[in-house]
């Protein structure tokens, strides 16, 4: 094995499930992606809002939550040629993790959120809400694994993943995954890919709204679900709205 291979892991390929939908050509110059670690001490809480600046972006967060710690992560993945946000979370007893993410893409943008949430001890809660709006030939991916360790009884984990395709050429991939080795666990996941309701659109237009304004109103509400309860909810919704305008 060469020295370089020991220092840096090789660029993944498509056989690696976590990179199946990645833009590997865009990822190459960013590789290896540094792991940013966040540790929240017992009983403390933290929050982070990620709004990548455009261009090609790949981030990897590793969040460790001690007993009773809380963390609220919000992501607006929009306007990136390639935007990959990977998040690993480990929850100790009674910890709480929230992810609210919106992915808004057009053109040939590739947006991905890849999470692995480990409930290592009993009584922790995690809630993930991901809303994607995809136009043109854009793709939006959510790969989310929730792993509940042996003994992590009373875990409560949810994943709600919905995507709206504005054009038939856009693509949404959603794969929530559960791995449960404990008892008395509540895991809920829902995924749906759809198009804007044509009847609703006509109703709004029949009242005088131009098509783009009607779509924007309907999508605004859809995207806002990712930011409900965020400390900076209003400003995130405004920025998401600006990103939506570009797609319509």
């Amino acid at each position, binding site marked *: 094995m060469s020295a370089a291979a020991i220092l840096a892991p090789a660029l993944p390929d498509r056989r690696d499930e976590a990179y199946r939908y990645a833009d590997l050509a865009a990822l190459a110059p960013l590789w290896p992606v540094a792991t940013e670690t966040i540790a929240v001490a017992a009983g403390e809480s933290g929050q982070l809002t990620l709004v990548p600046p455009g261009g090609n972006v790949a981030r990897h967060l590793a969040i460790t939550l001690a007993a009773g710690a809380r963390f609220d992560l919000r992501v607006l993945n929009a306007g990136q040629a390639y935007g990959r946000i990977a998040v690993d979370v480990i929850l100790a007893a009674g910890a709480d993790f929230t992810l609210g993410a919106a992915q808004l893409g057009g053109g040939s943008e590739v947006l991905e959120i890849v999470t692995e949430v480990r409930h290592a001890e009993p009584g922790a809660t995690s809630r993930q809400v991901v809303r994607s709006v995809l136009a043109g030939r854009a793709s939006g991916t959510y790969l989310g694994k929730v792993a509940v360790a042996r003994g992590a009884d009373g875990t409560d984990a949810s994943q709600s993943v919905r995507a709206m395709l504005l054009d038939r050429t856009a693509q949404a991939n959603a794969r929530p995954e559960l791995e449960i080795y404990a008892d008395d666990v509540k895991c809920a996941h829902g995924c749906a890919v759809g198009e804007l309701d044509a009847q*609703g659109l006509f109703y709004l237009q029949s009242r005088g709204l131009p098509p783009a304004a009607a779509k924007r109103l309907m999508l605004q509400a859809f995207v806002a679900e990712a930011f409900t309860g965020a400390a900076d909810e209003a400003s995130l919704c405004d920025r998401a709205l600006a990103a939506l305008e570009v797609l319509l």
Partner: protein
Amino acid sequence: MTTPLLSIDALHATVADKPILKGLSLTINPGEIHAIMGPNGAGKSTTGYVLGGRPGYEVTGGSVTFAGADLLALEPHERAAAGLFLGFQYPVEIPGVSFVQFLREAANAQRRARGEAELSGGEFLKLARAQAALLKMDMDMLKRPVNVGFSGGEKKRAEMVQMGILDPRLAILDETDSGLDIDALRICGEGINAIMRRPDKAVLLITHYQRLLDYVQPDFVHVLAGGRIIKSGGPELAHQLEREGYEAVAA
């Protein structure tokens, strides 16, 4: 001679490649109230949708002139700005979008299209409050998502509040009376009169029963069957239909 507000000439239309309207002609002058009655599946709602420009309703022949313009050349939102209002037989629920939010945008989009000044937030709320009061609807209901969780009758009442706010020149009201309780029927009837009974406006009521026509007395009543108007008359035609049924009257 007055210029008609709406003039439909030999309109043919298909839905999912199935011919539904087969030569429908109708002229409505400003100041007039017309009622269309007809059996289920006759094409009454289709007529409203075609005039509103709903996708999937394809015009295969004929012409429609509205306020001097070729209505069929306009997009749905342009038809609204030109003064057309469609009261839906089944109003659509839109989660996450409130009535006040969407109606303010809709009213201002119409105003912009007509080159009129937009309403400020305060002006809009004042207008919305007045129209809700006219229809005896709690203003709080307009802060809720569009039609979500509304009862059948509440949806119909909300349609009339929207009509009051948007102040159209022609309202096509598709079975506005269905689902309304006795008091709501009177309130909506009076609302229609208050909003629309003007020399420069007109109404096309689509209904199955005389009950709404007791409050909103029509000048003309038409029977639509098989995609065409097969008989027209005055208000007495509605009474005759109620007494004798479509088959006897159409024969």
